[in-house]
């Protein structure tokens, strides 16, 4: 059950934060509010001003939305984690998508009034966007603004923002928070979904915490971060990872002047140099989309490099094939688990040998050894505490955390010289997170070099022995994990000046 008898009340002109871990049921709740999922039980009551008497009591109506259209009609607007925009359309076209009006009876799309409407909303709330810009050419933060404009233009009273800050730079986050305040002052209600304590504390008027599909409490932003965290997880959480000081030895990964082009041909990684030594964890901090994905893929030979060298354990691997890099003792936890990490319709046993399937003892002369594969699976499931009834169930039947454990089990069950862990705990529960973190530290202690790439600054700071800040395809600074968060936040924004504020402070 994703949601279990949740009660939630949002007042007019309030920013109400919905705080919970990944998978706690926040998104499910919001999808019900927005008509994407129909609830099994319960009702949604919406109060709107009476048309005849705008200043009087709100009139309550009871709803059970069957589709987003119903929700829109009832005055709800939603900005999804993943934008629902058509990239090749202009801003104005996207905004009127689904409620296109035509000029008279000609059947021609009325773009002029769409443009005018976009301008009007932009000006009213300070959300400046060019209505004629193509969405695909806009930065992420601006795309998000388009989503907000889309919601506002249909006169929504309640705006739901689902994890809106995940993709933003600290500066963009600040701008978003300003916009939210302005909307609130204009009388709109906002539900702000997040699992980032700092942001929630900074913006919310009230905070509802949900855990395992239930509301576990309502609190005010004055509660301390550790209080909130404890509510969220259901117990005291150590935000630190226990580890001994590192003892770096020989370099296992030496990257110099690496340049990688992304799909569009721009240099996602641009002359980057970085060294990881055995026995240390290097954390790459940075806002998503600054070339981290391409960096990891280039090391694994999954993205073509256009310049620079990559040496792994002293050997030049810039032109090696992926399987050669895996053979050289490099473990890889890919950032997109379900796309790159697992074959969802394969069994757990099959997924556990995905990159060893043609090596002894799992196969000899092209024939799979089923007994050996099963033995390995049983062993891994126990050692890595994968919660499943059988190794023959598909990976798709596992929860996100357990899926990640399968990947970790696959990569950590052979001697590694180097581990590339991209977003190793994204979307996994706290229990799995602690487990994965401890295994990463264990790999370091047994002599592997580890490169942790994460957009969660907390994770990087907790794990890393050395933090490399990546911005715009380059490592712009290497700092100690003890460096104050604000300072790192500024570096992540590409700025070394001190006139800008880091997120949430």
């Amino acid at each position: 059950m994703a949601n279990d008898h949740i009660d939630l009340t949002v007042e007019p002109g309030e920013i109400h934060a919905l705080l919970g871990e990944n998978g706690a049921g926040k998104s499910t709740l919001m999808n019900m509010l927005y008509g994407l999922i129909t609830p099994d039980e319960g009702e949604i009551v919406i109060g709107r001003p009476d048309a005849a008497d705008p200043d009087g009591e709100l009139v309550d109506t009871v709803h059970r939305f069957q589709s987003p259209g119903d929700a829109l009609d009832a005055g709800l607007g939603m900005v999804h984690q993943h934008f629902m925009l058509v990239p090749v359309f202009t801003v104005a076209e996207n905004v009127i998508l689904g409620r296109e009006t035509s000029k008279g009876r000609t059947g021609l799309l009325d773009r002029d009034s769409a443009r005018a409407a976009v301008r009007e909303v932009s000006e009213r709330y300070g959300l400046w966007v060019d209505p004629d810009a193509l969405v695909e050419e806009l930065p992420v933060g601006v795309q998000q603004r388009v989503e907000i404009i889309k919601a506002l233009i249909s006169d929504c009273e309640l705006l739901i923002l689902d994890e809106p800050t995940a993709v933003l730079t600290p500066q963009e986050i600040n701008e978003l928070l300003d916009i939210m305040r302005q909307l609130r002052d204009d009388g709109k209600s906002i539900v702000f979904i997040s699992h980032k304590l700092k942001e929630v504390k900074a913006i919310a008027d009230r905070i509802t915490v949900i855990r395992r599909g239930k509301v576990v409490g309502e609190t005010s932003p004055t509660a301390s971060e550790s209080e909130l965290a404890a509510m969220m997880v259901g117990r005291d959480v150590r935000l630190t990872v226990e580890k001994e000081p590192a003892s770096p030895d020989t370099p296992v990964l030496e990257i110099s002047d690496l340049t990688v082009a992304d799909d569009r041909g721009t240099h996602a990684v641009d002359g980057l140099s970085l060294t990881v030594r055995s026995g240390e964890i290097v954390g790459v901090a940075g806002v998503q989309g600054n070339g981290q994905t391409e960096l990891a893929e280039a090391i694994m030979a999954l993205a073509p490099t256009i310049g620079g060298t990559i040496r792994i354990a002293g050997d030049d691997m810039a032109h090696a094939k992926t399987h050669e890099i895996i053979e050289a003792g490099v473990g890889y936890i890919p950032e997109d688990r379900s796309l790159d990490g697992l074959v969802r319709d394969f069994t757990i046993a099959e997924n556990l040998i995905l990159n060893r399937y043609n090596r002894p003892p799992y196969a000899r002369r092209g024939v799979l050894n089923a007994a050996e594969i099963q033995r390995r699976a049983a062993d891994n499931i126990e050692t890595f505490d994968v919660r499943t009834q059988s190794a023959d169930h598909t990976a798709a039947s596992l929860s996100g955390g357990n899926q990640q454990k399968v990947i970790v089990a696959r990569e950590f069950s052979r001697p590694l010289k180097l581990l590339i862990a991209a977003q190793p705990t994204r979307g996994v529960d706290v229990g799995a997170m602690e487990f994965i973190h401890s295994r990463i530290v264990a790999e370091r202690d047994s002599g592997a070099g580890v490169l942790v790439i994460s957009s969660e600054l907390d994770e990087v700071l907790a794990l890393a022995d050395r933090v490399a800040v990546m911005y715009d395809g380059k490592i712009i600074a290497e700092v100690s994990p003890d460096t104050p968060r604000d300072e790192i936040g500024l570096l992540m924004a590409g700025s070394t000046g001190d006139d800008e504020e880091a997120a949430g402070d």
Partner: protein
Amino acid sequence: MTEPKPAEKPEPDDTAPVTPAPETAPERPAEEPADQERRPGFGSLFLRYVTTANTVMVTLYSFLLAMVIGAVLIIVSDPAVRGTFTYFFSRPTDALSASWTAVSDAYAGLFAGAIVNFTTLAEFQAGEATIGRLLSPISETLTYAAPLILAGLAVGLAFQAGLFNIGAQGQVIMGTVGAALIGFGLHLPAYLHLPLALLGGAIAGGLFGAIPGVLKAWSGAHEVITSIMLNYVALSALGWIITNEFVKDPDPNKQYAISKPADESSLLPRLAGMLGIDAPGLRANLGIIVAIAAAALVAWLLAKSTLGFRMRAVGLNAHASRTAGMSVPNTYITSMGGAGALAGLAGATLVLGISPHALTHGVAGEVGFDGITVALLGRAKPWGVVAAGLLFGALRAGANTMQSTLPLDMVTLLQALIVIFIAAPALVKAMLHLKVPAGGLATTTAKGW
């Protein structure tokens, strides 16, 4: 390369396991349903099974629904039966009995032409009919099934690797060419000649099939487009090859475009002859054994070999396979090459198993295209393809008998209806008010289509 990124939240909700390990024991939700399921008897379990839109039942219902629609069309298309409906209310028995007769005659004819004709059986027992006539229907079914199974495997294997091999027809044609060239070009003892001719068909089909794989691997060109176009290339090439001096039959009495016939030593021996039955009409040949052996090989390959593991992995998730160090382009080439070899083998069984044992413009018939429907019906699983190939072979064989009551196109229509229902399980579910099975409705599709 163009596969859409899967929607971001495909995982089951994380809610349940968000539990600090020490607090609760690992949950075993399966125990409860198991307990519940033990209580009901076999009857209700069976009832539940047949009212659920699972793969087996959808396949079965698709077949039955196609038969029902076919029956309606039989009634409507027969002017005599239609005539009896104009006075339905003055004498309904006419209309009903005429409809019943038309439909039952048609389907009985289908059965008699495909499996066994009970009239012949009675005559045979009375000593009036030859064993040849008695076995003829089943022999025909096996004859038609062999190339259909092989072509179905060709499409099914590609499906497993996430590729939609619409080019089976072209590969079958190339297979006929390869087999025929060795069949009449070489003169060898049978134990060498036949295997070589089969191999020649497989290699020719395989090389031709690999082309879309290579194009996809090197340039990203979609195999559906390239393989469709290669069907035309194959057909035109066949036309050119037949008129070639070396290939064309020099017999002045053969005015038509036809190649030299393959040597007797290269032909697939007839099963009747191998079993010592003297019946000239039984043309079922070793081809069906070749087809079933190929299915067994494909089944083994997919389940037990590293190559099959790689094909399935790439088919299900090319990104993860690449990340795990597998060569996706290589897999595309191998899979399409393997698929082409199977289709080429289908072509070889046509030339070496069915008269005139020579190349003509129509030698491949529609076998390659029928292979697509066979693979869909068989859910791209090797043994499913065998079953589907036998069914379609039976329909083809029965159709020839049913011709006195119905046009040949009726069977094509039945096949099409079956495949439409199978491709749209939601339709079957809605029509029969079936329940959705636990894993959701299953359709067979290649990635990106």
